[in-house]
């Protein structure tokens, strides 16, 4: 009993020192490839919006950053932590899509001279949704939102683009509407690491803010990408590929199956969403925060399918 207590105390002290020294956790998951794991939570003042996974790839000459976090404060902490691991210049800041937990930290990187990169739809998405995000997050994030300035990409990806970091080329791919209408993945062939953005959720219930059918179609195409590990948008910072897709595919499949069955038997939207996909509840966190909205939007989408 005493031994266990002492062990716990030592572990706690270790964490305290580690976090005091580091502040922002950045793990090297493959040579020159870094990932940060966000909390599985809603954005709040307490977590500084740190709920998404972020990453960086270091080439011989330069660095590419993948997503910047949910607040300017987080972006600054990320930048500082990165500069402790490498002195190379940041050449690119890539945003995987438009959601605030991935782009609010962009402003922290504006002074680095990096080029901001995103899906061809990202500038439009940021223009139409940005003001709404800034105002609607005031309640949850308080003054942390006031420091956010939205920085859109100056380089956009139509379908596929290769960026050279000096002896290390990374491949960016733009997808049809799935999680959102501006989804972009980043592949590092050198290490076999795929940054999936929110095209992959682990632990955190998947969010459908684009198209349910599109998400299913894109998952099938993602599976063919040659990589050995993946950094999802939420959940464990790194997971084996492509097995990491399976849980999310099951969630989307079950939801789609149930919605289609409800639509076929003539159920109303209100009736259907009460039960559609609910068998997946034990498998996911934040289920009650997002699932019913997924089901509602999914029902309205699938209703248009031919009977």
């Amino acid at each position: 009993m005493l031994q266990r207590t002492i062990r716990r105390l030592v572990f706690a002290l270790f964490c305290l020192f580690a976090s005091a020294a580091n502040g922002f956790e950045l793990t090297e998951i493959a040579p020159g490839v870094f990932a940060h794991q966000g909390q599985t939570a809603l954005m709040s003042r307490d977590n500084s919006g740190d709920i998404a996974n972020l990453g960086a790839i270091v080439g011989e000459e330069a660095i590419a950053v993948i997503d910047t976090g949910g607040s300017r404060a987080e972006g600054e902490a990320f930048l500082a932590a990165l500069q402790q691991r490498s002195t190379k210049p940041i050449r690119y800041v890539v945003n995987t899509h438009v959601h605030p937990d991935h782009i609010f930290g962009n402003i922290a990187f504006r002074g680095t001279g990096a080029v901001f990169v995103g899906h061809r739809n990202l500038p439009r998405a940021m223009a139409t949704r940005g003001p709404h995000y800034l105002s609607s997050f005031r309640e949850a994030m308080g003054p942390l939102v006031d420091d956010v300035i939205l920085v859109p990409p100056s380089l956009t990806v139509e379908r596929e683009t290769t960026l050279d970091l000096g002896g290390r080329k990374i491949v960016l791919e733009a997808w049809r509407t799935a999680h959102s209408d501006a989804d972009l993945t980043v592949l590092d062939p050198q290490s076999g690491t795929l940054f999936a953005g929110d095209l992959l959720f682990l632990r955190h219930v998947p969010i459908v803010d684009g198209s349910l059918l599109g998400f299913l179609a894109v998952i099938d195409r993602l599976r063919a990408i040659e990589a050995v590990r993946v950094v999802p948008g939420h959940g464990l910072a790194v997971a084996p590929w492509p097995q990491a897709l399976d849980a999310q595919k099951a969630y989307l499949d079950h939801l789609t199956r149930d919605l289609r069955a409800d639509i076929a038997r003539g159920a109303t939207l209100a009736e259907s969403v009460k039960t559609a996909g609910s068998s997946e509840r034990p498998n996911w966190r934040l289920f009650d925060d997002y699932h019913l909205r997924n089901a509602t939007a999914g029902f309205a989408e699938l209703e248009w399918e031919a009977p």
Partner: protein
Amino acid sequence: MSPWTASLQPRTPRNENERTYARSRLHRLAAAAALCLAAGAALAQTPKIDPWPGLVADIFHDRAIRPHEGVVALQAPVRAEDAAIVPMTISLVEPGVRVATLVIDENPMPMAAAFSFGAGAGVAKIETRVRVNSYTNVHVVGQTADGALHSVVKFVKASGGCSAPAIKDQDEADANLGKMKYREFTSENPALREAQIMIRHPNNSGMQMDPITRAYIPAHYVDKVEVRQGDALIFSMEGGISLSEDPTFRFVYKPDGAKTIRVEAHDNQGGVFKGEWPIGEAS
């Protein structure tokens, strides 16, 4: 509720205005707290100024409206899961109701839909989907044959349905504008028929500003729909931006033997969309 998704605001009960007001009346609230709790009233959720009397003046020209549950009924969720897609069902309880108006009190455009029903159409029920912009009372006002108005009300918790960008895929919305779908269902009552009309339309609220031009992106929404069996009107609807993207109406009516369902929809930019389907053969 984390609200970076398209249509949702954070799930908090107050928008900017209400928060400011709430701070200033904190003392009064504290004093009245015990009374409120005892009454079990949703005082904390009551809008600061009840817009309903003003809406009665604007929409119903100050005609007398009697709160009464025997004429029309309203089904609406207590809490909307997606503020941009909130299902609401109006039941016509008393026969002979020819007009029913759906009002979302706190919305920027409160008059969500005004339905007129064909004389012999026997419409028993009509469901549509709306945007709800903040916690609000929702009224349905039904007009009986004698011209008298009767209302029912429900309170719905949602926010951001109108101000948040609702279009999940703008390219697809542009490509599909005006396409329609017709569905039929087995009706509980064999003398009645249940059907649904769906129209592809962004129903743009006009509340979004283009940050580059600083001009508001013009509202583009379905403002009128007519549904007929043969030549006979089943219902017509006048509405606005409170209707969800891809307006949809699911309704129960009395078939008169006509062979076709005909739909004509207009939008505020002069768009006209038509559809026709043989009854018994849904699309």
